[in-house]
């Protein structure tokens, strides 16, 4: 099959790639870009382990062609950390047992990143609804819920102490 040159923006970097036009975004990320955070779980778009953000919106990379994402901004779990350190939500997932076997975690990170980016102070119902989009077979979700609450608090405290410093 003839490869085609496409240009993708992944985690803020332009990447030029030669891929078969039939290649799924998930496979392109994992095989061509060695970004193996996104996982192939169910293969029928029902588990969410392959969730990435396309222009900031969570979608399943197992049902998208890489070629169809040309010109759009793709964010994977590898793009969630901030300045080389874990983002608050990543740290909170670790601290609160939101991740156990870890297979579903990268997908959850993207779902939760979108929730926090679009909803400043999500209610319990909003958090639980966001979590419904991904499957986890280890944690039972309650730990994730606690982790998200903790991450929001940590962010708010960080902002408060920052604004106090600014005030001083």
């Amino acid at each position, binding site marked *: *099959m003839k490869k085609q040159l496409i240009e993708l923006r992944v985690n803020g970097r332009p990447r030029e790639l030669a891929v078969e*036009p*039939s290649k799924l975004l998930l496979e392109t990320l994992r095989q061509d870009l060695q970004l193996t955070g996104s996982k192939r779980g169910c293969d029928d*778009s*029902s588990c969410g382990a392959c969730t990435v953000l396309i222009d900031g919106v*969570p979608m*399943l990379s197992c*049902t998208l062609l890489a070629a*169809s994402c040309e010109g759009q901004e793709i964010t994977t779990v590898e793009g969630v950390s901030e300045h080389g350190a874990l983002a608050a939500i990543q740290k909170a997932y670790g601290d609160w047992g939101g991740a156990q076997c870890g297979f579903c975690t990268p997908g959850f990170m993207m779902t939760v990143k979108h929730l926090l980016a679009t909803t400043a102070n999500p209610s319990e119902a909003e958090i639980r609804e966001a979590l419904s*989009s991904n499957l986890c077979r280890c944690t039972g979700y309650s730990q994730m819920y606690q982790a998200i609450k903790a991450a929001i608090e940590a962010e708010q405290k960080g902002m408060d102490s920052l604004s106090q410093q600014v005030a001083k």
Partner: protein
Amino acid sequence: MWFAGVYVYLRPTTLEEALEALYQSRGELLAGGTDFYPSLGERLPAKPIVDITRVRELKGITRKPDLFRIGGGATWTELIKAPLPRCFDALKAAAREIGSVQIQNRGTVAGNLCNASPAADSVPALLALDAAVELASRSTVRRVALQDFILGNRKTARQADEILTAILVPRAVDDALSTFLKLGARRYLVISIAIVAVVLDIESGKIRDARVAVGSCSVRAQRLTDLEQRLRGASLSDIAELAAEQHLKPLSPIDDVRASASYRFDSALTLVRRALAQCAAKC
């Protein structure tokens, strides 16, 4: 230029280009892809792919004097966010329970119709809104009632060179109340066992018009016209009691991995009664 016996991927940006590409390539249409890829499994697509996600004319949901036009490329999330009158509440509720948020962000309403699964979540609500679809080819544009568009399991009246350009909902009952109920093994990420949508147009405590549709209980979703007839003119009190087993005649549920036929039949009646009661309670 684009196909010499090799795999071809086309991404037109206008409807005219898309129709030409579809006609010339004899390919398959790809929109959200949320049904397309799972159905392929490990296989490669056998035909050229015409990706219509960037076709301008297919975007958006618009209000016209006599109808609402849901563009062929409109996603579930767009529908959920669109300001629509309350007769769309059932369709919006269906949209929120389709797959997961990721699927709602990518999958299209039109794709759900073209995929023509017996368990398609949007079909009962759209049937209850008397929706029609607009189909365009290079030479023609035609309108087909949704009831006549879905012919059977995975079968529609769409010709190979046609694109479903819009779903049209007549503005006959904008202020009618509507309710959607779905039964699955769990709430999210699940294929339905039974789906019910109810639209009730109410005037001074009496039902002026009623539409009741049931999905996942026959090869294609069905309106329960005998029940609708029974409901017209009835008062809202004890509305649920008016639904009886005999009204489910259009249904022909099957046994499968998700439920037995008799369980489906039983669930359908329970859901119809519950949906009627919930819808009337909104009044």
